[in-house]
């Protein structure tokens, strides 16, 4: 029944009018009144420049905006009689999706529409994240298609000390498990082939937590685990004023993302536990060098509570971590000074893997398992950041690579723990 009410009658009628298309560009919107006009302009220009002959449609999937975003979109020139000067009519649709507001609902609507319209390529962009340029739209969309790549992820030039959750945990874990490295596994924007979208629609993740909250990680993991071809394309980070929206805090993002990743690992166990050699994911386009300036320095006291946290969580950690790992963590906690712990790669990797295995076993509530990892992650971040406070960017990058290799080397340990626990 849920499928039956996914598309409103009005949306169905508009999709009938659009008919078969080659390209679908989707924009999940939620209170984006400031940025949506610019984003749509960039999308139309990008389509006119790079897909002049393709049949295309732009779909804004709205989660219930209160600031008039749908009205703004409706007022923008497009539809059957637009004047953007292209060969073809380009349709532009605003559709509200039902259910919990969030990217999963929006992406599901976009994928469903793309499936119905037999699109060859689908792209999803965020109106807020890093301003869109026509070049980035072309760069992401062009390689996607049923005959070429099933997933195209962006590569944005960032300093190695940025995006610590990605660099310390998500990226090396994905790389070690699936054998393929995506620079940006959190797909806030991406392009995929129509058949990949159809495949993802068939999976039962759109209504279930935690996958729903971290749907982009799930999509990336699915692409890496199956017989899908993925690539990455270098996208310029356009110089523009940073978004006015407040950045989400760690608390808001850690549990959904890490939970989604663990759930993906759980579901794809058969795929990534095969003994396959690691494959690189091809990178298209000219690599832009990352900025040399590190982000604003980490505040002191970041890792100050690590020892206390480990003590407090002792009974929980004991039930998740292997005895050796727990001993190591306890030792780190004991030895932690005022500036925080020193949390080297090996125990960190062992910690992560124990948690992954523990999540799979489900000895205690899974949401609790993910939450229990957060203080350890904070400790690790403190250790890494203070340790690299004075290091140049390439040294940091090298150490990140070392970390990733440690993850890869310890993969047999993960598999062993996985089966011992279950």
């Amino acid at each position: 029944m849920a499928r039956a009410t996914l598309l409103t009658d009005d949306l169905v009628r508009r999709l009938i009018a659009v008919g078969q298309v080659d390209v679908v560009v989707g924009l999940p919107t939620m209170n984006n009144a400031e940025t949506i006009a610019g984003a749509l302009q960039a999308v139309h220009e990008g389509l006119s420049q790079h897909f002049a002959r393709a049949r295309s449609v732009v779909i804004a999937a709205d989660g219930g905006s209160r600031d008039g975003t749908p009205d703004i979109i409706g007022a923008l020139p497009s539809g059957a009689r637009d004047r953007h000067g292209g060969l073809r009519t380009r349709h532009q649709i605003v559709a509200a999706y039902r259910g919990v507001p969030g990217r999963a609902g929006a992406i599901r609507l976009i994928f469903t529409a793309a499936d119905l319209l037999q699109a060859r390529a689908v792209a999803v962009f965020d109106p807020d994240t890093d301003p869109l340029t026509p070049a980035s739209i072309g760069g992401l969309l062009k390689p996607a298609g049923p005959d070429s790549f099933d997933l195209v992820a962006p590569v944005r030039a960032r300093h190695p000390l940025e995006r610590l959750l990605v660099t310390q945990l998500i990226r090396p874990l994905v790389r070690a498990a699936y054998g393929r490295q995506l620079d940006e596994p959190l797909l806030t924007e991406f392009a995929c082939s129509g058949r990949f979208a159809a495949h993802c629609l068939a999976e039962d993740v759109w209504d279930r937590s935690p996958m729903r909250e971290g749907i982009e990680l799930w999509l990336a993991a699915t692409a890496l685990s199956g017989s899908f071809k993925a690539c990455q394309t270098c996208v310029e980070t356009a110089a523009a004023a940073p978004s006015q929206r407040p950045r989400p805090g760690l608390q808001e993002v850690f549990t959904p993302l890490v939970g989604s990743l663990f759930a993906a690992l759980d579901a794809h166990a058969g795929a990534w536990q095969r003994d396959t050699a690691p494959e690189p994911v091809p990178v298209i386009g000219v690599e832009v060098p990352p900025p040399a300036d590190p982000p604003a320095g980490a505040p002191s006291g970041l890792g100050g509570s690590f020892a206390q946290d480990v003590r407090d969580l002792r009974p929980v950690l004991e039930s998740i971590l292997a005895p050796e790992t727990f001993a190591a963590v306890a030792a780190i906690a004991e030895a932690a000074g005022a500036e925080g712990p020193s949390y080297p790669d090996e125990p960190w990797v062992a910690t992560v893997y124990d948690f992954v295995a523990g999540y799979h076993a489900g000895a205690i509530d899974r949401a609790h398992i993910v939450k229990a990892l957060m203080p350890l992650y904070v400790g690790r971040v403190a250790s890494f950041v203070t340790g690299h406070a004075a290091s140049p960017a390439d040294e940091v990058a090298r150490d990140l690579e070392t970390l990733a290799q440690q993850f890869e080397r310890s993969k047999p340990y993960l598999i062993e723990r996985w089966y011992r626990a279950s």
Partner: protein
Amino acid sequence: MTQLIADAVSQAWTNFLESVVLYLPRVLATLSIVIAGWLIAALLRVFTRWTLRWLRFDALSERIGLAATLRGADLSPASVLAGSVVFWLVFLGFLLSGIDVLGLTALQGLVAGFGQFVPRLLVALAILAIGFVVANFAWRATLLAAVNARMSSPRLLSNAVRFLILILAVAMALEQIAVAQTVVLTAFAIAFGAVMIGLAIAFGIGGGAIARRFLERQFPERSDSDTDRVSHL
């Protein structure tokens, strides 16, 4: 004269023996019921333990923290304990039915009382079990939330939450089996009320600063948090 006494005595003995003979079947019946009950109860105990092992009840009891508590109280593991409970309940039932057969009026009420008691006992046990699970879950959830939100003394907070929920569950169970109802009710009300008043006073007067800090932490401006001054995404 001697003949009279002998006759009376033999008559009495005959009567006595007659009544004994009349009563004997009942005794035998009782004994048989009791023995049969013991056998059935033993069977059921084995069956219960086997079923619970098959259902991985021990693993479950580990998860909800019951096993740890039992160990702490020097009791046998959960499935064994459950089997024993089943055994005693069934055996007691048969025992009381057997006694009932003897027809001793004084004990009649006991059987009826027992019949009414058992269901309530089961409900009380269920309440305790649920209370255990909830308490454990809440303990862990509170602990994790407090640690991640950088609140002070997370262990104290989480243990307090668990304690309170357990107390509540025990009180509810005791009320179910109607043991010292009024005493339990009153004691519980007093204890709970005292805790609540204490908290209120702490927040309102003495702990104003802590309360403010607590509230500020509950609704923080995200960017102020240390963890959020580094870039995670």
